[in-house]
């Protein structure tokens, strides 16, 4: 399985010639579409932020106009300083990521895979959308609800809703599709937890394995992993690198002894001629350690630090004034957009109906239109029971609209494919459709 060059992600620090080649991970959507370099992450966010500021400013202006046209009072657009910066957005996002952990562990008792998947969904969502367009307090529950389904631990809507105050099923249903779409319908997230548990086995793969130490270190390493969830690490590094770094951060000696053993047995020479791909983990040991230290620095900086709740509150307050009014139910602009959308949908529906009618007409023109019988009988029977030539041909008394030859009351048209039978009765023609022949 080759990865097409178009799909190559931005080369992150660990994908620049350091990977030992296609593995299941390298085929994953996570590698193909959700790997970034730190600088590309930054520029994506700056661009999103800039665009949202523009949109919010424009729409706030439009909201003002809409309010004025309704004769309501209005608010002026926020001053430029009021908008969220990229780091404001990130802090708010981090806060809501940590909320997922709380809800999973305390509210539902859901397994880690749901928690880590939901957090990844939330982080991915905000690489396609800005906090100023969609408030994370609305997107976070949706990510969790969706993640529970995609990881095989579905929660019934009613039960789910009951754990949140002020949340209705519609809040979830209205945004679930948006979230799925923002994720590119890619739902499988490779969590570093499996990698970490794999390392706990691999670390035993040496003479005189330090089993006791591994066991003692594991819980702490898992704690580090939980901190990773609040960072950008999954966008930059592989799950196995993150898993190993979590161990290294807990006990560097444990990991370095293992690497010492690994590199001394697996590579015979450490001269320059050794091919990189043949080295353990496809890279030199010093490069691997450098990566581990980079990861650990990010865990310590972005993952372990306390979230400044005061700042979160301040940002959230500011956000109220710089949220895209188009997305807030109840605003004049929201109502206006909704109406526009409904009108457009009605128009497209009407166009569709017209098209279908035209197509039906077109079909009919091949065989002629439906027989219309100017009968003296009740109009209903005229409409409902058009002439059936088959019936007349077989001499079966006809109950409505027509009598047998001789007393025929009807003027049949023979357009289309009509033919006359031996009695001069026209068969088919415009009425072919009513004979039950396939059109």
């Amino acid at each position, binding site marked *: 399985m080759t990865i097409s060059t178009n799909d190559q992600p931005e080369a992150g620090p660990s994908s620049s010639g350091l990977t030992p080649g296609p593995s299941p991970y390298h085929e994953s959507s996570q590698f193909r579409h959700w790997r970034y370099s730190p600088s590309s992450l930054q520029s994506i966010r700056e661009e999103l932020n800039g665009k949202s500021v523009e949109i919010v400013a424009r729409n706030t202006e439009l909201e003002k106009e809409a309010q004025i046209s309704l004769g309501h009072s209005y608010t002026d657009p926020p001053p430029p300083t009021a908008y969220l910066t990229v780091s404001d957005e990130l802090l708010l996002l981090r806060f809501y990521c940590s909320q997922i952990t709380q809800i999973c562990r305390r509210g539902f008792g859901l397994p880690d895979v749901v928690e880590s998947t939901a957090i990844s969904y939330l982080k991915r969502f905000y690489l396609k959308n800005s906090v100023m367009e969609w408030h994370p307090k609305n997107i976070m529950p949706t990510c969790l609800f969706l993640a529970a389904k995609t990881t095989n631990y579905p929660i019934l809507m009613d039960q789910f809703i009951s754990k949140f105050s002020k949340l209705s099923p519609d809040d979830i249903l209205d945004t*679930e599709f948006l979230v*799925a779409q*923002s994720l590119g319908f890619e739902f499988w997230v490779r969590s570093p937890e499996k990698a970490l548990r794999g390392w706990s086995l691999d670390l035993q793969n040496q003479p005189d394995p330090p089993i006791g130490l591994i066991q003692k270190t594991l819980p702490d390493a898992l704690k580090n992993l939980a901190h990773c969830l609040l960072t950008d690490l999954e966008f930059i590094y592989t799950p196995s690198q993150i898993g190993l770094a979590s161990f290294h951060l807990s006990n560097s000696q444990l990991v370095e002894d293992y690497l010492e053993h690994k590199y001394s047995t697996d590579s015979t020479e450490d001269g320059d001629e050794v091919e990189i791909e043949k080295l353990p983990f496809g890279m030199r040991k010093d490069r691997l350690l450098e990566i581990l230290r980079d990861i650990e620095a990010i865990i310590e900086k972005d993952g372990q630090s306390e979230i400044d709740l005061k700042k979160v509150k301040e940002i959230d307050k500011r956000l109220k004034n710089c949220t895209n009014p188009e997305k807030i139910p109840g605003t004049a602009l929201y109502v206006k957009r909704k109406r526009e959308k409904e009108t457009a949908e009605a128009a497209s529906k009407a166009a569709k109906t017209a098209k279908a009618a035209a197509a039906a007409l077109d079909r009919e023109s091949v065989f002629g239109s439906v027989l219309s019988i100017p009968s003296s009988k009740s109009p209903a029977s005229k409409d409902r029971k058009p002439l059936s030539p088959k019936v007349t041909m077989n001499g079966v008394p006809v109950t409505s609209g027509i009598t047998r030859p001789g007393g025929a009351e009807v003027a049949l048209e023979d357009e289309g494919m009509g033919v006359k039978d031996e009695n001069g009765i026209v068969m088919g023609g415009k009425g072919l459709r009513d004979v039950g022949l396939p059109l």
Partner: protein
Amino acid sequence: MDLAVRENTQRASRWEKGVKVGEGTFANVYKGIERSTGRKVAIKKIKAGEMKDGLDMTALREVKFLQELHHPNIIGLLDVFSVKQNINLVLEFLDTDLEAVIRDKALIFQNADIKSWIAMSLRGLEYIHRNGVLHRIADFGLAREFGDAGSKMTCQVITRWYRPPELLFGSRFYSTAVDMWSIGTIFVELILRVPFLSGETDIDQLKKTFHAMGTPTEQDWPGHTKLPDYHEIGSYPKNPWWNMISSIGKEGQDLVKDMLKYDPAARVSARKALEHRFFSSYPRPTPPASLPKPLAELRPRALAPDETQGKPALNSSGSGAMKRKAESPQPGRNVARKLVFA
């Protein structure tokens, strides 16, 4: 416009939807083409919306797995886009499926053909298992990843006729071996041209299984009497049942026996099966392009609803081999490569 919406619009514009070729409770399938190349594709429109619990979980799982699995013997998911609240999967166009092939009595199968179909199925399956996914003979809507030892799974999977005895006895902790049993029964069906074990109920399925191959003893299958839904089902004698497939030759009989071992732990793996002498002995497998294939184009047909317990609609389509279940009728299946079983 939101970035995600813009991306979606771009994706959607790559594909042109054509006539409907299949209809089901959860999905409709259409022919389609890629605008830039004119390449034929199948577009599976999953009906979403208006469901109380949001996006359908079966659809989500199918998308989840197909997004990650890329193999010549697994139906390719080319794109996903949405129109209003419907998810559209753009799938590789395959022009027949194994069910249509089996059903077309005008076709004559040679052993080399059967070998080719089984080899393709096993290659798809081996890849899936290597990636930590159980197929469970269905659309990927029933697939799941399995790496978490100790997590319980449902036993109501796999169309009954292809369901292994451990699932019929209610096992909740099962493995890739379930898929191997399924492929074994399909192997026999290819030889006999009728379903091998066509039980009318779950109990009947066990009865038919034991009637055909003898009731398992503790030695055949250690521990099976401890399974949650175990009950005694007659004591049928063991017969050399493989004589009925003697036309496939001794190597083929051996492989079928390895696939249909009662003890899941003893059942052959996809990888080992591919190394079996059957595939290295004469005759060579038929090249996919030369495999028998119904003359008539696949007609539109009803897609069965998701059926985890009913009779198989037998329209395997799709993916790796397995897809013998309902619901995804890929309109077509490419003859040979995709597991044509699709």
